[in-house]
């Protein structure tokens, strides 16, 4: 058993690694399905509302058109709302925005989270949206739940109260509640297929750094294929620096290491790198971007130049490097994000909007008591009914056909 065998047994490899084509196909089918469902759900809600109104007025036939929302994006001739749904690209942009939010919220005071923990949260979000669409579940809700879930999966447990306090302190308002954090937790764990392990390149790159340091210092135990002496290897490294000194080369290594780490803490997390490449491929690609000659020398001591694997590896690393450079910290198009957010507001699945209530409904022990204003009561009723529909499907209950799905 070697490291490769271990990696191939991991859920990261078995469930969460894709070819670029497979990844694109997955996202496009998720988007298509969500679009279809948003349209169907909106239609159900509209019909239910129309029906309710017509029965309240006790009018024999409801005027459906009159009851469609005024701001719903227009109404077609046949009474069907025209719903402008998000494209895959728009979905990715809005998801990326909230992943980036993790990078500012996670490490911020109070209770700053280490970067590998935040990195896991981001991967949870990215994995979640392979089978779900932002139109169904808003990335903001999922982000908040994912950042809390990682505190439990990645040994950074601070408890829910402290977490809620963290979020409210950072956002400067008191809007976050325990219920809102927990509401999507089950959806999230389900979509993650109950796998919580994320393998990161952070430890690997540290190993590479120390190995290169040993190479520069002539203290690296060379692999059997290597015919050079440790001193010869050191010389080759030292030749890289302009000053041709050990100190200058070590400084160059530190610089490359820091640059590569920045890449790992940003681009690697926000791009599709984790879904497409292994952790060593990711950190080697980050090093390659930071200092190519240095990284190539490092690889010379790892794999003989004559090995057929070598060109293949380099091609993979360059492809991974391309993915890593596909994002830039400064090129956020805020105007475009605002546009997408507005669009998302109009095409959200109305049946999945209120996760807190959905979650409560799912627990089935909720007692609706006291006076509720009409809106809340209506919402609750819809959730209950939806719940019953689900219950029927799941457990084959003998409830009479629900009226609103007519």
């Amino acid at each position, binding site marked *: 058993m070697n490291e490769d065998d271990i990696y191939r047994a991991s859920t990261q490899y078995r469930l969460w690694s894709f070819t670029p084509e497979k990844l694109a196909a997955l996202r496009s089918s998720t988007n298509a399905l969500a679009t279809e469902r948003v349209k169907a759900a909106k239609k159900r809600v509209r019909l239910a509302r129309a029906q309710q109104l017509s029965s309240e007025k006790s009018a024999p036939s409801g005027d459906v058109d009159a009851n469609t929302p005024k701001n719903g994006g227009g109404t077609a001739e046949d009474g069907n709302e025209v719903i402008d749904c998000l494209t895959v690209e728009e979905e990715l942009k809005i998801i990326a925005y909230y992943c980036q939010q993790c990078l500012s919220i996670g490490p911020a005071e109070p209770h700053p989270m280490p970067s590998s923990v935040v990195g896991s949260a981001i991967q949870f979000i990215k994995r979640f949206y392979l089978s779900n669409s932002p139109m169904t579940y808003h990335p903001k809700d999922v982000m908040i739940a994912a950042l809390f879930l990682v505190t439990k999966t990645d040994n950074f447990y601070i408890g829910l109260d402290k977490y809620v306090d963290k979020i409210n302190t950072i956002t400067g308002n008191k809007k976050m509640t325990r219920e809102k954090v927990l509401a999507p937790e089950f959806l999230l764990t389900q979509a993650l297929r109950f796998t919580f392990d994320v393998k990161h390149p952070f430890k690997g790159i540290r190993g590479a750094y120390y190995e290169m340091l040993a190479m520069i210092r002539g203290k690296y135990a060379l692999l059997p294929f290597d015919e050079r002496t440790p001193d010869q290897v050191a010389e080759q490294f030292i030749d890289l620096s302009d000053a041709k000194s050990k100190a200058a080369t070590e400084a160059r290594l530190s610089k490359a290491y820091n640059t590569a780490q920045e890449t790992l803490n940003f681009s690697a997390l926000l791009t599709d790198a984790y879904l497409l490449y292994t952790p060593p491929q990711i950190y080697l690609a980050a090093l390659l971007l930071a200092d190519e000659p240095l990284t190539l020398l490092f690889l010379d001591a790892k794999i003989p130049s004559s090995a057929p694997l070598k060109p293949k590896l380099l091609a993979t690393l360059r492809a991974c490097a391309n993915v890593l450079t596909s994002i830039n910290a400064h090129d956020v198009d805020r105007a475009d994000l605002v546009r997408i957010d507005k669009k998302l507001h109009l095409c959200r699945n109305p049946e999945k909007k209120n996760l807190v209530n959905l979650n409560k409904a799912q627990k089935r022990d909720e007692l609706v008591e006291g006076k509720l204003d009409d809106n809340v009561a209506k919402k609750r009723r819809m959730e209950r009914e939806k719940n019953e529909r689900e219950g029927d499907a799941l457990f*084959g209950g003998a409830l009479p056909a629900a009226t609103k799905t007519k």
Partner: protein
Amino acid sequence: MEDSPQEPSTAAVDPTIDLSEQLNIETRNKYVKGKEIGSGTYAFVYKGHLRDEPNTLVAIKKMKVMENYKDGLTMDAVRETKYLQELSHPNIIKLYDVFTSKDTNMNLVLEFLPRGDLEQLIHDTGNVRYNSADTKAWMGMVARGIWFCHENFVLHRDLKPNNLLIAADGEVKLADFGLARSFSEPHLAMSTEVITRWYRPPELFYRARQYSGAVDIWSVGCIFAELILRNAFLPGQTDIDQVEVICQRIGTPTEENWPGVSKLASYVPVAKDKVRPVQPKSYYMQLFGTVGPFGVDLLMSMFTLDPRKRVTAKGILDHEYWAKDPRPTDKENLPKKGGGEKKMGEDLKRKGGVLEEGKADKVARKIDFGAMKK
């Protein structure tokens, strides 16, 4: 069996169900939940089988919603699921599937291990007899299991005889990963409130906030000793007493045998005249001689006070002990004990890291050293 799904997968038609929810329903429908074989404060355990293959048995561990825990999924459930999803090895309990039932409780579908646990075999001195070849076979399986965990950078942190379950074919499997975690980033502190007291190494009592696989190795040593003695070797009554028992039977940790120990947060300096020397090999030979001098060497290397010098899981597997006579017993021929199904239920429902109720009082405080001399 209130949430045993009686319907085959008919839910595909519901347009409001998410893909992942759909997958969850399909997973749940793969199994039929049978009778309850254990129930505790932490989980219910059911016997179950594959719907399509009634002869393929499974254990279904359903996590309870905790009364006093309101932070969503519990840490134990998260940890156990996280690590068992990654670890696939003959000496680690297999996690086949995970699904949620309608009340959003997590259900772990686990390998069915009907032959009880090592603790039962160890303590049933009236009915179960075993020899040093059997002990070697069991220890080999435990060592391979923990080696695989460490190779995957996972610390078990609750190894003890009743977390070592026995499969129908005699294979021993590490179970209960409710306290497991991955090796820490070097600068992050870890909890010292792990591992059941009798199996907990000295560094945890001294609150070392960074530790390694060595904590599990100490537990393996305690298990090895318990297999030979047929009694717990280090049964402390309280945490403070436990340290005293370790000093007595293993030796007092000092700067000489463990450089740096005095810097650990809860280390209490011991007066020179109170220091007990590390026990010599002759002492171990007297107590544990049945496993031979190589077995004793191995045991002593697991009880090395300084965790940095303690043998590693790899070191255990490379030890000469395995190559010497007797050959370990083939797993099919190992002594067995019936009625393990119930025991599996009992073992899986427990909360990690604690001794079973009343056990500390019942087990003899002192081992009768005289009786063990041959």
